[in-house]
């Protein structure tokens, strides 16, 4: 099992460690729902060292990325970031990623899921054969730490001369943090304001400890993967292996905004066929349930005794104070307000379709 540079730091903080995508990661330091509330109201610190980080440069870097993924890389200005997907030729999702265009416009940076890193690198190297491009795996040469929550800017600004107020959402800068040169982006996976910093290996603990100590008086705490999942789910963000995987396409997942049909990417033809047919007949929706049971991944959804879908993710939402879920349902049952039932041990429990995101922060 792989370990991030902060593994012993998590253990010293009393974290419960679990295997996640081949990494030994903190799932929680305190009660999961309390950690989620801390991020919604104060700020939380996350070790994301397990995520894959890849630099892409060379004469045809842009053309390579246009072929690799679904979004229109040509439309990303320097210092900005876009969400996108890597598909296979069948239009099915291999991963969801973030594509960063370097602030100096001399290449790109791609952040990928831990569990898909090896496969993504294989796809990238295969697609790269047709282009004059260098794909450089930086997962081991860069650490990754996120600070998320309404107090993120106030805390982070103490450690950087970069003007954070000038960094837009999904923007990034080359700067110094704790005196160490690194890149910083206004991104995250919680639905809150916040930053992710890409820390040169060897400096992770210095940065973590600085934020942790300085943020403590503002209520900042370390946050594990358990609360991270709750937060992203409330914010309507998909998780690979749940809402999206190699059996789903981005159109039925409601991610068409990250698919631009103006360039020729792997899987585009398959998506065109799906569009021509008017969809796949199913759609990703949100569900609310006040039942004592929480709808969980894999539970069948039924209407009038017939299965019409299945649950992708379920969580107890501390922010909405009810159970939330995402699910694929047949399109005729996808309208908000539709009453459905989910089956838990063959017992039917009521739930209601609603729009996602479940939670949107006040701006």
């Amino acid at each position, binding site marked *: 099992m792989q370990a991030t540079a902060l593994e012993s730091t998590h253990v010293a903080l009393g974290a419960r460690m679990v295997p996640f995508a081949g990494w030994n990661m903190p799932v*929680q330091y305190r*009660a999961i729902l309390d950690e989620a509330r801390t991020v919604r109201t104060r700020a939380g610190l996350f070790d994301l060292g397990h995520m894959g980080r890849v630099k892409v440069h060379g004469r045809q870097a842009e053309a390579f990325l246009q072929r690799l993924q679904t979004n229109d890389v040509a439309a990303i200005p320097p210092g900005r970031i876009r969400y996108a997907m890597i598909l296979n030729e069948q239009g099915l999702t291999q991963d969801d990623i973030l594509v960063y265009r370097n602030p100096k416009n001399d290449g790109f940076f791609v952040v990928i899921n831990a569990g898909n890193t090896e496969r993504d690198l294989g796809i990238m190297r295969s697609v790269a054969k047709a282009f004059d491009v260098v794909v450089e795996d930086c997962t081991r040469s860069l650490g990754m730490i996120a600070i998320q929550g309404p107090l993120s800017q106030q805390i982070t600004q103490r450690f950087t001369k970069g003007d954070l107020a000038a960094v837009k959402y999904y923007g990034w800068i080359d700067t110094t943090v704790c005196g160490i040169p690194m890149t910083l982006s206004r991104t995250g996976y919680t639905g809150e304001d916040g930053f992710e910093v890409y820390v040169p290996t060897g400096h992770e603990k210095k940065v973590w400890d600085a934020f942790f100590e300085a943020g403590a008086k503002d209520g900042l705490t370390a946050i594990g993967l*358990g609360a991270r*999942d709750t937060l992203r789910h409330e914010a309507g963000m998909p998780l690979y292996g749940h809402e999206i995987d190699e059996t789903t396409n981005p159109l039925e997942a409601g991610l068409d905004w990250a698919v631009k049909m103006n360039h020729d990417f792997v899987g585009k033809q398959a998506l065109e066929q799906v569009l021509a047919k008017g969809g796949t007949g199913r759609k990703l929706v949100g569900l609310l349930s006040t039942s*004592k049971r929480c709808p*969980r991944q894999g539970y069948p959804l039924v209407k009038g005794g017939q299965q019409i879908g299945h649950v992708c993710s379920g*969580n107890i939402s501390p922010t909405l104070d009810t159970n939330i879920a995402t699910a694929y349902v047949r399109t005729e049952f996808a309208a908000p307000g539709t009453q459905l039932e989910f089956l838990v041990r063959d017992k039917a429990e009521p739930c209601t379709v609603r729009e996602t995101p479940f939670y949107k922060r006040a701006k």
Partner: protein
Amino acid sequence: MRPNDCKFLKSHEWCKIENGVATIGITDYAVSHLSDLVFLDLPKQGASVTIGESFGEIESVKAVSSLYAPISGEVVAVNKDLPDHLEWLAEAPFGKAWMLKVKVSAQSPDLMDVKAYDAHCKAEG
């Protein structure tokens, strides 16, 4: 210290057999690893449970786990207050957080004594 008059399964259920009736629950190790418990589903009195099969479910904030029967037999009593007092599981997993009393018709051959179970927990980490 776990009680030495209990027997244990690797899946972290315990049972204590007195006069042909087994009291069944889950161990402190199970409770600490499940963490943040939110729901418990137990069978009704009169139901039968079977060695190695699920007799109920326990749900935490993040996951649902099945509870496995260390013995076979008929449920003669259920701790009906426990689902509304899940905090008892952390306070007294071998005491007031008992789950079922079952009239024993057969015992699992995989039951361990407390010494073997302590070693098993240590190995799981």
